[in-house]
């Protein structure tokens, strides 16, 4: 079937039966600036389509039509990688008719490719599209950068639909192959560029964060990872970016050039690419406009799909070669299990994204966090929700010292003469308790509202009603 161009959603539903295809997916590259998800789901709301199963790669606070559909009992199940805002809050308190399944970025791509996430219609916001259905995300008036999370959907959904506000004659080097696309819908606007860029991609100036970043860079350096050809992922957290800045200083001083940085890409990574400190950026998600601009002009800034990024069954998987990753934590426990899915009050406020993927694959996985957050110690007996298994986590770096997972005896041996403040995780917890006392662990509600599925398909934890 050739790609058909339509100019509104109504025309689409004259072509396909909206009541027949209940498993629908979206990507989140337009983040809080996305108009497409609400635009499409309003049709489902108006037409009272029931028993929907949603597969958005993430859910942001502006995706409020999901909330309307849930309240109207139109959604059975949601499978996603990350959620925060009103939808997260409502699901935490009320659950769904069915269940919430939290996957990883690599796990989602794998599930779609292997048919576990059986998607009927993929609605793909596409910033720059040609008449054959070829598309890139890094051009157009609402450019968002890489379309990495939408690639599996664009190949494996039963019906693939691009929604765009920029239709052109030809797209070079498309991320999305027009041969797979069934429909293009041209609309006035797919998003608000102000909301597309995350507001969180700033190097931290918070003194505690700066201290953690300094310790982190010193730790990575002492362990010998900062050498020619090393690979690294930091994400877009302020502390991780500050650590990246410090790592850059060490690289300059020792004339080190990294082979690649991967994952979500920011201005800071782009600057290091342009300075020649790193050879390639493998970008599954642009976090700011500098990254968007760079990906459109620098051949060494390479958009990749979520599958190539982190699908364990993809032989091209980038992160299998990852030396070091820095990740955050809402909570971590004595077994180094990490929670970035829910708060300690069981409210959903995030999700794995690539957390578990990269922790599993990287040779060195470092969690960075203040030891005490808003008077609550970050270290628990047991985290409220396991997002990433402790066996895949190597170090915790806080402002008061560093804990190494006892399973990593090689790291402990390397650091035995270090001037860094190395503790066991229980010793670090005791330092925190000295200030906070030992907080009572919240008793979980008995009702399970969802589960955390690792990229292996194992269910590694359940999510309870708040």
């Amino acid at each position, binding site marked *: 079937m050739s790609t058909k161009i339509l100019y509104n959603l109504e025309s689409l539903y004259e072509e396909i039966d909206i009541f027949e295809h209940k498993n629908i997916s979206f990507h989140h590259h337009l983040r809080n600036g996305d108009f497409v998800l609400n635009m499409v789901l309003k049709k489902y709301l108006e037409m009272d389509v029931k028993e929907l199963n949603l597969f958005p790669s993430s859910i942001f606070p502006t995706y409020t039509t999901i909330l309307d559909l849930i309240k109207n009992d139109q959604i059975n199940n949601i499978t996603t990688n990350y959620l925060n805002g009103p939808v997260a809050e409502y699901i935490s308190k009320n659950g769904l008719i069915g269940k919430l399944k939290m996957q990883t970025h690599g796990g989602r791509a794998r599930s779609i490719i292997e048919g576990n996430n059986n998607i009927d219609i993929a609605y793909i916001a596409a910033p720059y599209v040609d008449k054959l259905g070829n598309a890139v995300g890094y051009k157009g008036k609402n450019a968002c950068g890489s379309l990495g999370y939408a690639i599996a959907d664009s190949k494996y959904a039963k019906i693939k639909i691009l929604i765009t506000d920029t239709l052109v004659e030809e797209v070079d080097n498309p991320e999305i192959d027009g041969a797979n696309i069934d429909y293009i819908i041209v609309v006035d606007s797919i998003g608000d560029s102000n909301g597309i860029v995350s507001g969180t991609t700033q190097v931290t*100036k918070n*003194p*505690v964060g*700066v*201290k953690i970043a*300094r310790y982190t860079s010193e730790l990575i350096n002492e362990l010998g990872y900062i050498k020619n050809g090393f690979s690294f992922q930091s994400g877009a957290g302020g502390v991780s970016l500050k650590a990246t800045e410090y790592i850059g200083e060490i690289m300059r001083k020792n004339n080190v050039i990294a082979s690649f940085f991967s994952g979500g890409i920011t201005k800071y990574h782009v600057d290091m690419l342009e300075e020649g400190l790193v050879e390639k950026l493998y970008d599954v998600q642009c976090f700011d406009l500098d990254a968007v601009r760079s990906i459109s002009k620098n051949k060494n800034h390479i958009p990749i799909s979520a599958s190539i990024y982190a699908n364990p069954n993809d032989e091209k998987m980038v992160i299998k070669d990852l030396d070091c990753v820095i990740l955050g934590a809402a909570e971590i426990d004595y077994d180094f299990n990490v929670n970035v899915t829910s708060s300690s009050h069981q409210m959903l406020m995030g999700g794995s994204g690539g957390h578990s993927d990269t922790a599993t694959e990287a040779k060195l996985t470092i969690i960075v966090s203040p030891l*005490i957050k808003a008077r609550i110690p970050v270290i628990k007996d047991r985290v409220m929700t396991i997002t990433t298994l402790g066996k895949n986590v190597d170090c915790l770096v806080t*402002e*008061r010292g560093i804990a190494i997972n006892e399973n990593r005896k090689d790291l402990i041996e390397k650091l035995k003469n270090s*001037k860094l403040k190395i503790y066991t995780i229980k010793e670090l917890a005791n330092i925190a308790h*000295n*200030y906070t006392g030992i907080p009572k662990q919240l008793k979980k509600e008995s009702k399970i509202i969802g589960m955390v599925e690792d990229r292996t398909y194992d269910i590694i934890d359940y999510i309870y009603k708040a």
Partner: protein
Amino acid sequence: MSRSYLFIPGNNPNMLQNLDVFNADAVIIDFEDSVISYDKDCARDLVENFLKKYNFENLEIYIRINDFESNDFLKDVQSTLDLNINGYVLPKAMPESIDDLNKLIGTKGKTIIPIIESPLALLFVREIASKDNLHGILLGAEDFTKELNVPRTLEASEIFYARSIISIACNAFNIDSIDTPFTNTDDISNLRVDSLKAKQLGFTSKSSIHPNHVETINQVFAPSKSEIENALRIVTKAKTELKGAFSLDGKMVDLPIIKKAEKTIETAKKYNLL
């Protein structure tokens, strides 16, 4: 001798809790300018309870009390006299206010760091430096230049004389000379330049109003690698020389230079640089 003195607001529990995190050699818990008037009681209660519960080894702790003429001066001193602190930082200091504070301290074993923050006080700096029980003198350049009615500049020529005379007075009486804080919290590069200027004039240390400044200040006011190496060579050669003065690398080395080298080694050891 400390390299860095970090100001921490006395009414901020989060900052107090982390006062030993930022690697400052000394912290100055502030009851004065960073605490608004209606929060002064709260700061006193908070700091009293905090310091009664927690001990901080290897960290000097001072409290900047309110100035002698304020209603809070007496309350600040009385509520903290029995706490485990090293002493007081005294704003708007003059010779008489130091005497009065010393009387209140009595035998409690606390020292004083007066802040020179007016042209008049600067004229008394020699007398101030000679007072009993002083740990050092701190230059408060913001108020000082305000009274002089001149703007602060990056070049800092407006405080060149004040820095020079304070440094000389402190050196003469063997007490710490503590430079004024660098007020641009994000400009670490110029913080380094400013710190080096103070060090070149003889300052032993610098105060800071932001924890992110401490690392740079510690680096600048610690002996450099080459200074340490040179000091070690001087002290080593001095042990084998029978004469009071000798030549090293074509330069004359005598007793004051040997003493200075010994002090450098002592400081390097204190900060784990050896």
